[in-house]
């Protein structure tokens, strides 16, 4: 009998599939499509200390097999998350990963302090959002600043701490190593790639911020390579993501070394994608006679 359960940061996940931050809200929008307790976990929309109204102008642009987004971390802020969303999420019967972003170190600290008091399973420290000007990503671009923020945050929370890494980092392996060195319990990768689009008719850039974040199947080969590289160079577990559209992609990430896998853009293609992939993963395990994902994790 196949058992889909995996341990990640000492927490039990009923299966390795989680939904990616910013693509699943707080779950509400998907509850009518399937029973969300089927998921291994849900990563919340990126939270900041104070509410954020997000970016103006175009927020989406489709590219070949990819999606550029410039949402700009629109979110209700940590307080309202705790009051209005978390109680709902707790009833869903799946693990909650609170994704926290920020513009300044102080914001990060305060937000993490507040979230740490709550009943969330994991904190995902987002230092990789390319869509807010003075925001997250600058902390995640090199191992020195990554190490610094992880050290600080580690000192203020006892929650399992996962750091979400940027594919735009100078060297994602060294960033992951810095996370490990400073006591992070895991890393998640990748966030979106910094990309851009130009409207040649109007001769203007599509996004007010000029650059936006690229996600979807287009980035999968690169994301998979990054997960593989990181997994060979750190001992903390990985949440792998970037263009996963079906169970086959998910298995590739697991074989490359990911313990959990996350779907982002795929949720937009079909709101039931989470359930579909969980079912397909189960079927795959059975067909291939895999008893536990440990058997295939990191075998490449």
């Amino acid at each position, binding site marked *: 009998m196949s058992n889909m359960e995996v341990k990640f940061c000492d927490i039990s996940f009923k299966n390795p599939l989680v939904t990616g931050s910013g693509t699943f809200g707080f779950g509400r929008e998907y509850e009518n499509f399937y029973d969300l307790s089927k998921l291994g976990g849900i990563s919340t929309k990126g939270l900041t200390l104070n509410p954020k*109204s997000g970016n103006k102008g175009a927020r*989406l642009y489709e590219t*070949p097999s990819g999606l550029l987004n410039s949402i700009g971390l629109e979110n209700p802020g940590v307080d309202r998350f705790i009051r209005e969303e978390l109680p709902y999420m707790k009833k869903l019967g799946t693990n909650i990963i609170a994704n926290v972003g920020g513009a300044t170190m102080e914001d990060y600290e305060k937000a993490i302090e507040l979230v740490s008091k709550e009943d969330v399973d994991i904190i995902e420290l987002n230092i990789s959002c390319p869509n807010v000007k003075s925001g997250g990503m600058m902390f995640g671009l090199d191992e020195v600043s990554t190490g610094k923020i992880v050290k600080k945050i580690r000192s203020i929370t006892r929650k399992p701490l996962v750091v979400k890494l940027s594919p735009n980092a100078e060297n994602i392996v060294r960033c992951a190593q810095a996370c490990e060195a400073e006591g992070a319990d895991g890393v998640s990768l990748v966030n979106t790639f910094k990309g851009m689009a130009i409207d040649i008719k109007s001769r203007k850039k599509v996004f007010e911020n000029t650059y936006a974040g690229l996600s979807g199947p287009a980035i999968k080969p690169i994301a998979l390579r990054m997960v593989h590289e990181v997994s060979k160079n750190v001992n903390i577990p990985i949440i792998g993501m970037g263009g996963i559209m079906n169970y086959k992609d998910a298995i590739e990430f697991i074989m490359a070394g990911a313990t959990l896998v996350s779907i982002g853009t795929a*949720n937009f293609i079909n709101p039931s994608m989470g359930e579909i992939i969980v079912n397909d993963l189960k079927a795959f395990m059975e067909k291939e006679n895999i008893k536990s994902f440990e058997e295939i994790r990191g075998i490449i």
Partner: protein
Amino acid sequence: MGKIISNKEISPNVYLMKVGGNYKGDMGQFYMIRCDNFPLLSRPISIHNIEKDCISFLYEVKGQGTEILKNLKEDDKIILQGPYGNGFEKREGKIALIGGGMGIAPLFYTAKNLDNVDIYLGFSERSFLEKEYEGVCENLHIKIGGYITDMVDFDKYDYIYTCGPEKMMEKITEMGKDKVYVSVEKHMACGIGACLGCNCDTKNGNKKVCKDGPVFLGEDVYYE
């Protein structure tokens, strides 16, 4: 998964597509439509009509997604997700429906579901489906080229429902004030309120076109 019943070019580059099945939906709602893995995102298309055993969509071929739609033939498969969104409400009183360009698409089903409506349709070059629209309203007014707003006596109506180019809807809102409800268009990814990509800036803060809209009180919307 639906099956194409028919997919006809009714005017240059404009298609009327019927999909078999018992689909639901209110006036002004839309479906997210796709065929296969490509293009990546589904395309939002308004409900043009719902009949007993089929739903229809009226669309213009713009880019890759609609190009693929246009090539669909009888019996081909199509994926419809929906109905999504908050459409036009059923209100008492005399209502004008004003459509510009492809904005006319949702007004057919809207008219069918309302009593006592007049329809104003503005086309840039040539009109189509006049007969059909005539069958679902009291008075049909058609304008080819120029401003459709020139034809409308706003005082005659209790409500104005409009869909079309933003400039047109902005103008109508100016003229019709708080009688006007507009159907807003934004690029969409999820269609269900999860990605926050279809943001519409309103007097009541950020709204999601796919979930809070596409129909909003005209005066609430900050036009771009």
